[in-house]
Structures are given as structure tokens and as C-alpha cells.
């Protein structure tokens, strides 16, 4: 009996000690080491070429900074990336630097989780802070301080399978564009014809999958629609523009069948669709495509031409163990020379790098004309995908609400009204 009591006391003591330790983990650091510093940056790319480039920049930095013992790039799975980073922070194991997705940006930016960067960047010799495009930094700014460097601003574009269009007896994408018919209405019409004659899909909004609804901003922006107003306080899912945009999408899925319906997959890059909306970085999947393809801007909607971009930022986490060292390394990692190197894979936010020569290196499969006509205007004019604080909760509520829309006999205005009702409390905070 005595042994049992002893064991129980030991267990409770250990539990209490660990609990106190765990709780202390979130309190941050008051003093930071000045030597033997190990920096860690979480990334969602495990591409060997990307990591090799990061390592080479880190090696160059460490050669001049003996206080830095190591710089590690820690790839995490994309699907759970944000929740993994926040769990690491909660566990007292916050990375020093982290990539951040645009949909999580408002949460990170507004919470004070990121270290202000502007003063450090401006004080860094040769950084050329003014070269950063204001449109690229807007999402990552709080109280006039940049808190994350927008290291990748990737426009959404349309890839077209001209072989499949020809097989279905349809005009090529270039002919469509030349004739002034590069709009959603025509895409739907041609997509429907492709589906009925070949059995393959007309157009696919890649990664949407009837779950990740925010990818539909690449369509509804053409109708001038948005999920919430400019300051994010009022839901506009039930607006006339959004009803029209979703009516188009619903018809495409259930009436014209130009878009694969829910639960049906079609991979453009495997030759299973005539058109796909996706980010420019997916062009590398066409290296072994086996079909004739073309790159075009997003089709015109009822409001005319428009562009949408996806963004990622790199920030130094305030809960990290080495915030000062991390910020200084970030200034080096994103200086003009290294930004030019990073531009090989990630469309840069520096206006001086938005040139055909720079971007051609990043996209060897694209012609200079495609880069000049599609990629650069997309980056310069693109509206970033929608984001809001509490983005995960909003995403779940909207996904659950829109599920009722993806059936053949859906009452579209009623579903969108209900969706607005669900997220309004979150928008109001």
C-alpha cells in the first residue's frame, strides 16, 4: 500500500513539474543567446532544389556570422502546415522563422506573433526596401511595419490543352483569345462540348475539390464578388454578384457539365481536362505533359479583366528563441541578390525583379510573351486570395454551408444567405 502511495505521489509530482514546464513554454524568452545560435525555419516545400538553394544562402550567411552555429530548413506537410506550426508554438518549440500562407496571414499579423521587420530591413545596407511592391506587402503590414516578407506572389492563370480542344472540334485557346472570346461564358460552352464529345472535363479549378472554396475567388472575382466587405466586418456571400457567380458555377457542374461535379476528379496535367485554373508554379508539371498546351490569363468575367494571386510570407516568430538573429538572417535571405536567386522558384515582390529575364529563369517552359502578357500583369495587378482573422473557423463554416449548394436542385440564394448567417458572428469578432 505504501508503495502504491509512493508511486502515486511520484506520478503527481512528475505531472505537476511537466505541467509547469509546459505552461512556461509559451511565455517567450526574455534573453537571447549571442553565440552558438541554431536557427530553424519551417517551410512547406520538400523540393530538393528549393532546399539546396536555401542551404546555399544559409551557408553564405554563416560564413560571415560565426555566432550562427546552424540554420535548418524544416519541411512540414502542406495540408497541416499552419496547424503544425501553431502546435509547435504551443509546445514551446516555436521555429525562429516560418513560411505563412496568405489565408493565415491576418491571424499571424494581427496577433503580434511576428517580429516587426521594417526598421531592420531599412537599416540593412543595400536592402533597397522601397523596391518591395506595395501591393505585395499590403497583407503583411501591421501598424506601418512589415511583419513578414512576401517572398512568393504567384498569379493564378489558365492552362489549356489544345490537343483536347482540337479532338473535340473546338477552337484552340489562342484562337479564342484572338477572337475576343476569352471569357467564362465561352469557357463553359466549350468545356461542355469537350465533356460531351470526349467524356473528359471542360474546366477544373485546381485544388478546389468542393472543399477549398476560397480557390473559387479565381472565378467570382470576375463577377466583382467577394466573400466579405473591404474591412472584413460584413459578409457579402449573399450579394447579387456572388449569387450570379455561384449560379454560373452550379450550372457548370450540374447543367452544362463543363466542370466536374462533386466527388469527381479530373487532372488537367494528366490530360483529363481542357482548361485548368491554377498557379503559375504548376507549369513544371507540364514538362512531360505529352500534349500541346497554352498559358493564358484568367478569362474575363461580367466585370471584365481581373487577376488573382496566391501569396506566402516569411516571418520571424516573436515566440522564437532567437528573434534578433532570425530577423537579421531574414534581411540577408531576402536582400536583392538573394531575392534574385529565390526568384528562380518563387515570383518575387521586388519590382526590379519583375522582368522577363528574371522570370524566364523561374519558368523555363514559358515563352517570353507568356511571361510578359500573363505572369507579370498577374503579379502586378493581382488581388490576393481572400483572408481573414479566424480563417480556419470561417473556412470550416463556409465549407459546411456550401455543401448544401453542391446538389442538383440547390436553392443558391438561400444557401448563400445561410452561409452568411453562419460566418457573420466570426466576421464581427
Amino acid at each position, binding site marked *: 500500500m505504501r*508503495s502504491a502511495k509512493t*508511486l502515486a505521489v*511520484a*506520478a*503527481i509530482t*512528475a*505531472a*505537476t513539474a*511537466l*505541467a509547469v514546464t*509546459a*505552461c512556461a513554454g*509559451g*511565455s*517567450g524568452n526574455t534573453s537571447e543567446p549571442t553565440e552558438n545560435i541554431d536557427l530553424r525555419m519551417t517551410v512547406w516545400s520538400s523540393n530538393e532544389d528549393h532546399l539546396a538553394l536555401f542551404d546555399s544562402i544559409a551557408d553564405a550567411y554563416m560564413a560571415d556570422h560565426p555566432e550562427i552555429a546552424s540554420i535548418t530548413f524544416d519541411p512540414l506537410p502542406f495540408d497541416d502546415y499552419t*496547424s503544425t506550426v*501553431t*502546435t509547435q*508554438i*504551443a509546445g514551446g518549440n516555436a521555429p525562429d522563422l516560418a513560411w505563412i500562407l496568405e489565408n493565415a496571414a491576418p*491571424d*499571424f499579423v494581427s*496577433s*503580434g*506573433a511576428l517580429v516587426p521587420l521594417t526598421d531592420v530591413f531599412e537599416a540593412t545596407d543595400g536592402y533597397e526596401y522601397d523596391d518591395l511592391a506595395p501591393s505585395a506587402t499590403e497583407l503583411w503590414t501591421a501598424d506601418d511595419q512589415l511583419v513578414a516578407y512576401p517572398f512568393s506572389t504567384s498569379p493564378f492563370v489558365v492552362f489549356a490543352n489544345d490537343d483536347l480542344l482540337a479532338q473535340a472540334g473546338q477552337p484552340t485557346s489562342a484562337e479564342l483569345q484572338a477572337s475576343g472570346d476569352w471569357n467564362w461564358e465561352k469557357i463553359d460552352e466549350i468545356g461542355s462540348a469537350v465533356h460531351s464529345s470526349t467524356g473528359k472535363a471542360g474546366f477544373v479549378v485546381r485544388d478546389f475539390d*468542393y*472543399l477549398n472554396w476560397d480557390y473559387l475567388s479565381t472565378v467570382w472575382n470576375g463577377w466583382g464578388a467577394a466573400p466579405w466587405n473591404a474591412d472584413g466586418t460584413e459578409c457579402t456571400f449573399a450579394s447579387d454578384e456572388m449569387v450570379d457567380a455561384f449560379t454560373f458555377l452550379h450550372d457548370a457542374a450540374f447543367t452544362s457539365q463543363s466542370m466536374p*461535379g*462533386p*466527388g*469527381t*476528379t479530373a487532372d488537367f496535367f494528366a490530360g483529363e481536362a481542357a482548361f485548368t485554373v491554377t498557379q503559375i508554379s504548376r507549369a513544371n508539371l507540364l514538362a512531360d505533359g505529352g500534349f500541346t498546351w497554352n498559358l493564358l490569363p484568367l478569362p474575363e468575367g461580367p466585370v471584365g479583366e481581373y487577376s488573382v494571386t496566391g501569396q506566402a510570407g516569411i516571418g520571424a516568430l*516573436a*515566440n522564437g528563441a532567437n528573434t534578433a538573429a532570425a530577423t537579421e538572417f531574414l534581411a540577408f535571405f531576402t536582400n536583392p541578390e538573394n531575392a534574385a536567386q529565390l526568384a528562380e522558384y518563387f515570383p518575387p515582390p521586388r519590382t526590379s525583379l519583375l522582368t522577363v529575364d528574371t522570370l524566364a529563369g523561374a519558368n523555363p517552359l514559358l515563352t517570353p510573351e507568356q511571361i510578359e502578357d500573363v505572369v507579370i500583369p498577374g503579379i502586378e495587378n493581382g488581388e490576393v486570395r481572400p483572408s481573414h482573422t*479566424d480563417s*480556419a*473557423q470561417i473556412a*470550416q463554416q463556409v*465549407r*459546411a*454551408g456550401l*455543401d*448544401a449548394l*453542391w*446538389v442538383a436542385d440547390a436553392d443558391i440564394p438561400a444557401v448563400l444567405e445561410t452561409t452568411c448567417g453562419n460566418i457573420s458572428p466570426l466576421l464581427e469578432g
Partner: protein
Amino acid sequence: MALPSSVSSGRASARPEGAPRKPWLTYARRDALAGYVFIAPQLIGIVLFVLVPLGLIFYYAFHEWNVLAGTFTFVGLENVDRLFSDPQLAPVLTATGVFSIGLVIFNLSLALLLAVLLNRRWRGVTAFRTIFFSPVVVSLVAWTIVWGFLLQDNGGINGLLAVVGIDGPNWLREGGTAMASVIVVQVFKNVGLNMVLFLAALQGVPRELQEAARVDGASDRTVFTRIVLPLISPTILLTLVITIVGSLQVYAQIAVLTQGGPGISTTVLVYYLVQQAFEFHQFGYGSTLAILLFLIVLVLTVAQWQLRKRWVFYEN
């Protein structure tokens, strides 16, 4: 009876003056120490991975933790109040109940049916036992992803149905079929384990009893319900407890197949609490939901344990 003074007066006077001091590490103590060393890994594991998390969950339930802002605030019973006013909790508990009941009914009845069939001396019966058991050792996520493809609108299941002229539903996207699909995928994954347990129990039923009953004119059905079932009732209790507790912990299948949809029709309690804690960063509320789950499992397990006296054979 009076005890000798050396015994009755306790440890202080146990050693007579001038006698040699007994070694501290006696045989009894050495045996005890060896026992503790043997159980130490398990004990440390329980402390670190069961008791500490359990204690922390109760601690966190009284706090609100904004991970990104780095604030950790005592909120008292606010999370409990939120639990009772959460409009999504009722549908989540309903989905959890439907999943658990469906899984228990289908899993146990199919496992028992398979065990009875494969308990006979058929040609190739060993191969069938292996086939039905093999999903148990397959990676859960891989198994679920494959089923996800099969259950697509243009997937393998509807392809087979189309061959016989049936236009199959969109299994994972329609409210009526999504939950059934998740249950079936889970049943096929784990039915082999219960089948093996039932097989072992069936092989422990004395043949003489069954033959004696047949000699007395009992039908196969009577032999099964009056002799076999009572004798394997302890195994039925075991599989029932394991299956119910397992059904309340399902997460990966929901995450891969439906993400809780359509709507929140397949959002079970574990999926909901993981969402709250790790996706929405509401660790306090997530912990409160975890306590709710703990209480549900505790109540169900205790209830089953008490009910065993009523229906488990040779229990007092």
C-alpha cells in the same frame, strides 16, 4: 496473545543489542526493486503520456490560450458554459452516436458471422481467415485513401454498380450515404480483429455440450443461442467494449474521407475537438470537449461492466 517484545515494539527494537546489522537490500526488497525496474518503462509511459496529458487537459479547460498572441488567461467555467450553448454540439453528438451504434452493430454481427462460417473445416478456410484479417494490419490512412477513391462519384463502387444498371449515389457527398460509407470503411478495416477473437472463443466451446444438445433434439439455432452464445459472452463483452471505445476515437477516417461533411453530418466528437484545438487554436474549448469525451467513455465502460452481470455467462 501477547507478542514477544522484539516484535510488538516495532522496528526500533527489532535488532537485539550486539547482533549484526541486517543488510538493507534484503531478498524481499530486491524482489520488489526488480519488479519496479521491470514495470518502470510502462509506468513512465503512463505518467508521461496518460496522466500528464490528462491533468493538463483539466488545467487547460479552465483557461483560454491564444497561441499566436502568447496569452494564457484563466476563464473559470467559461468553456463549460460554451459547451452547453454550442449549437453544433448536439449534431456532433448525434453523429458520434450514429457512428458508434452503426459500427458496433455491423462490426460485431459481421465478425460473429464470419467467425461462425470460418470456424468450420472447409477447404481453404485458412486463406479466408487471412484475407479477412489482413485489413487490420494495413495502414489506416492508406486504407482510407483507397476507399476514398473507390467511393468517388466516378469511382470503382459506382463503376461496378453501373455494370448491373444501377446509378450509384455520390457516396461521400450526400448526407444520407456519407455516414454509412464511413461506417462501412471502418467495419471492413477492423472486422478481422473481432473475427479472430470470436474464432478463438468459438474454438473454446466444448463440442460435447453441443453434441449432447443435438442428441436431445435441439436445432442448430437453439444450440447456437442457448449454448454457444452464452459460452462466448465474455468475448462478446470484450469486443463490445473495445469496439465502442474505438468508435468514439475515430478521426483519420473522417479527416480523409469527408472532412466532417457534407455540412457537419459526419463531424464526430474527436474530429470536432481536434478542429477546435488544433485548427481553430481554441485549446481551452478543445480540452473541455476532450473531458466530455473522457466522461462519455468512462460512463459507457462502467455501464457495460455493470451490465455484464446480467448477460455474461459465468459472471457473479
